[in-house]
């Protein structure tokens, strides 16, 4: 039971919430240095509880590294990338709820973030190759019903962040070490666009740019974006813009993917890392890895509404509830101090609950909210 109900932090919880009416929000969070995935439930007014810890990985003598977590659009399955491998990592698929293993498939070096097509058929995982030689890496395309990798798309150095647009026709990933945003056409599974996010040089890459993309930071001068995440717009901006976190340049770029130009910039605190856009497209939430905080932006006005300190350092992942009311934030922490999951009320912009998970809590995705129409999201 270690880790269950470790501690509950209920600052600023609305006192009037009643259990019978309160929805229950459930999430999965990967703990990279514990090889455990936590299933957590949040009940407004009551707080957070770890319902289950699911062991993943196969080697007790080596940290397998559960990095990314993604829930299928229908909520029936969840996926976790096992980053470390010997040397190649894996994708594991589980039944959501029973949390039983459905299947596995081997991917590339350090598979990290995933994006899933709206129909749930294809999962695209970036092979981050974090610690290997600085050579272009790729995006693995997995056919999820059979858990087979059907192709790999060579993209750039250290691809990270992986998201599919609302229409399911385009996939986006960022290239931390070659300052690129890469778009993949999901009909052909080919790279359809490369956008340079180097500060001052933003623009669609011209022919022949692939060599430059493979050159790494050393060829690009001092100012770099070092993008760690890309998040498609939602609501009215769905399939029109994507948001790119420039980790080193302390800003978020809004990139118009029809005109292929930077349409807006959002200055942030230190090291914006992961991004989330609420389902209606109203808010943009950014984890600030270097600042132990989360920044919330109003996408209509472009203003930063607030910056909320998180409970532990190395703030990592963020996901918003489908109703747009809460943001759930994972914090890695460091060393032997376990990571945490925080809940931020997006109306009050306050931290309303926090719970200690396992070591290096990172990958996070929303699973369900009950009661709700259809039972789950």
């Amino acid at each position: 039971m270690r880790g269950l109900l470790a501690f509950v932090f209920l600052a600023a919880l609305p006192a009037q919430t009643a259990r019978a009416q309160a929805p229950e929000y459930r999430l999965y969070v990967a703990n990279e240095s514990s090889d455990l995935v936590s299933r957590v439930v949040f009940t407004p007014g009551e707080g957070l509880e770890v319902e289950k810890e699911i062991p993943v990985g196969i080697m007790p003598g080596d940290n397998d590294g559960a990095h990314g977590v993604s829930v299928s659009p229908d909520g029936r399955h969840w996926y976790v990338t096992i980053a470390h491998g010997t040397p190649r990592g894996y994708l594991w698929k589980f039944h959501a709820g029973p949390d039983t293993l459905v299947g596995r498939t081997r991917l590339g070096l350090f598979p990290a973030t995933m994006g899933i097509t709206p129909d749930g058929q294809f999962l695209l995982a970036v092979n981050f190759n974090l610690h290997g030689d600085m050579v272009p890496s790729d995006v693995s395309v997995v056919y999820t019903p059979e858990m087979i990798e059907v192709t790999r798309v060579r993209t750039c150095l250290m691809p990270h962040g992986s998201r599919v647009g609302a229409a399911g026709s385009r996939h986006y990933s960022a290239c931390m070490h070659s300052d690129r945003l890469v778009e993949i056409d999901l009909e052909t599974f080919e790279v359809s666009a490369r956008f340079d996010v180097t500060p001052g040089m933003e623009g669609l890459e011209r022919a022949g740019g692939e060599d430059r993309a493979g050159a790494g930071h050393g060829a690009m001068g001092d100012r770099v974006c070092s993008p760690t995440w890309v998040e498609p717009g939602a609501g009215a901006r769905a399939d029109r813009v994507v948001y790119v976190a420039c980790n080193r340049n302390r800003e978020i770029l809004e990139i118009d993917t029809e005109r292929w130009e930077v349409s807006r910039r959002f200055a942030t605190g230190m090291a914006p890392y992961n991004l989330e856009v609420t389902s209606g497209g109203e808010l943009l939430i950014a984890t600030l890895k270097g600042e132990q905080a989360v920044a919330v932006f109003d996408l209509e006005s472009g203003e930063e509404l607030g910056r909320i300190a998180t409970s532990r350092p190395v703030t990592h992942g963020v996901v918003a509830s489908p109703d747009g009311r809460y943001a759930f934030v994972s914090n890695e922490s460091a060393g032997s101090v376990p990571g945490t999951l925080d809940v931020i009320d997006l109306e009050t912009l306050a931290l309303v609950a926090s719970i200690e998970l396992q070591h290096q809590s990172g990958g996070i995705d929303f699973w369900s909210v009950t009661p709700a129409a259809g039972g789950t999201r």
Partner: protein
Amino acid sequence: MTRPAESVALVVLALLVAACGGRTSRATVSTAAAPTPPPATDTTPAAEQPQTPVAEPTPPADPASAATPDPALAARGYSAGVRIGARVVDVRPEPAEVVVQVGDSLAMGEDVEIVAYDDAGDPVLGIRILTTLDSRAAVLEEGFLRGVAEGEAELRMAIRAPPASGTGPPEIHTFSAPVRVVGLPVATVDIQDPGVRFFTGSIVQLHARAFTADGSERRSVEVEWSSGSGRLATVDSRGFVHALFPGEVTITARAEGIEAAFSLEIEENPVATVAVSGASRARTGDVVRFSVVSRDESGAEVGGVPTDFSVTSFAERTNSGASVYRDGAFVAERPGLYRVVANAAGRTGQALIEVVERGVEHDAIVVGRGLVADRPTSDLWAFSGADGRDYVYTGTHLGGQRMLVWDVTDPATPVLTDFVEVDARVVNDVKVNPEGTLAVITREGARDRRNGIIVLDLADPAHPVIADTYIGDLTGGVHNVFFAGDILYAIHNGTFDVHILNISDPGRVVEVGRWGIDSPGKYLHDIWVVDGLAYVSYWNDGVYILDVGDGRWGGVPAVPVEVGHYAYPEGNTHFAVPYTNADGHRYLFVGDEIFDCEDCVSRNGHPGDGSRGFVHILDLEDPENLREVARYEVPEAGAHNLWIEDDRMYVAYYQAGLRVVDVSGELRGDLYRQGREMAWLPTGTPDGVVPNSPMAWGPQFFKGNIFVSDLNSGLWVVRLEPRRKVPVS
């Protein structure tokens, strides 16, 4: 077949495809970053296009018939590429047999074209075909299929098609084709001289080796054998020569058209008697050498007689518990009476040998413990400190962050004197230099994902202090290290190379060299250095021996030279340590660490608990030609680290706890089954990180005691005592 009524629509669709720049005669091949991005459809000139109908047009969607499996109907509402998939019944490469030579590359789309076919056997046009290949023999990247090592691979091809139900998202249909990776052409063939004479009635196996022009051996090449005179001698497909009549005959081995000949003279068999001699009594596990003397009718000794051996047991209730090898080495697993038979050119002789219990059982007595229950424990190192006291340092795992300092001067009461806390979640390895002045601990899981090593000053060994934090290129984490004078060899998780560090100035570590193999999917795990030779455990690529100062092969510490290499089918080579026992036998003990196998059964639900793997024992007399002669395999568990001293091997055998094995004398067969196991201790404890779950990590024999670290329970101090037989009352 196309119905006339559809012909107009077909033409329209064909024009549409063509208007989109479409190819019409060939399917396309998708590979990662192909040299020229494949177009959506074929660009083959019209004159070359086969007269095959393109994608059939489909009527508007009709929900009422959505469940029909008819492909044409099912294709409604899907994109053109998907609709076309409904007609595909097969996808296969051209040429049908994909063969690539080691070191060569085939251009996908040119040298190898992937084509989709319909049920009439005609190519289906304009469909996107995705390809992948997961193999250690070949890689598929940048639009090329590259041969890496001799072997077989599977090319997986996938297309998208409407679902059979007619509704819902498209399905992926997969197909596969074998890929054969062949070695460089055979340049020479050599038949090894068996070193025996050929007498009528004898059966002798010849061995042929094929070599390429660069001198490397082709191990998997097929060799055809033939006899120059079937009347005098026959030879079978395995090279066994059956000598029939006296005379001269030439045996030929042929590989890829290259031949070698071996001429032999068959003599009338003079052997009349065969005398077999050897010890008549032995213990289980003892290797007894049987020798054979063959004589003719006159009693004169006959030399060069081809001889082989067999053994039978007189036991009625069990199978034979002994083996005898071609070199006359006999070893028994069970006590009993055995008959060893020597076959010398068709004549036989025999000898009896009685085998008794080995009788090396000892009791493992727990002398002391240092319980670690708040975090998993990893490796350990025991040493005498500069202050004259004895210490054990232990690492920690999975959120551990610390190296623990134990004063074990009184082994019965290990005292935790201090700990060193670093920015890491795994301190996997701990090593102390022979002088006891420096320690190095490894880092994995650092907060900023930049790991490296920590150098500790042991002026006060009870309270070591950090002398340097070295990251350099070791950002990916270091799993193991080993000291060799002023050099530290570090195993890097990122490059999977050995990084060679000069540590002569502990406050200023400098990388001075690097060594690694060139193998796709290589994974490096450990290194051990003894007397100028390094033993590098390279997982599925096996163990490598490097000259890092021995000098016989020209190696120096910063510029290693490869001496020998050995890989075995089980793979997962995890650890290797050499040892020369009191009888002068020189062996390399190699552990593999296997998880995720079919037999890897977990007891507590965590898949990691189901470890397997064993200790392979290689003859190290000639480091350039390693051969496996024995093993130690606990059937239900998995080997981890080991330590050998005074002819005793101490193995931390994960869930099977500490095992102590007698490795004296010559080693053959499975030591576990021979009664060579002296003692074992389950290292589980109710108050451990995981209660009652042994997970022994690493042993070290030090000053008469065995120190063992266990993932779930911390530090154990164990002493062996001869087992006292308790009389039966």
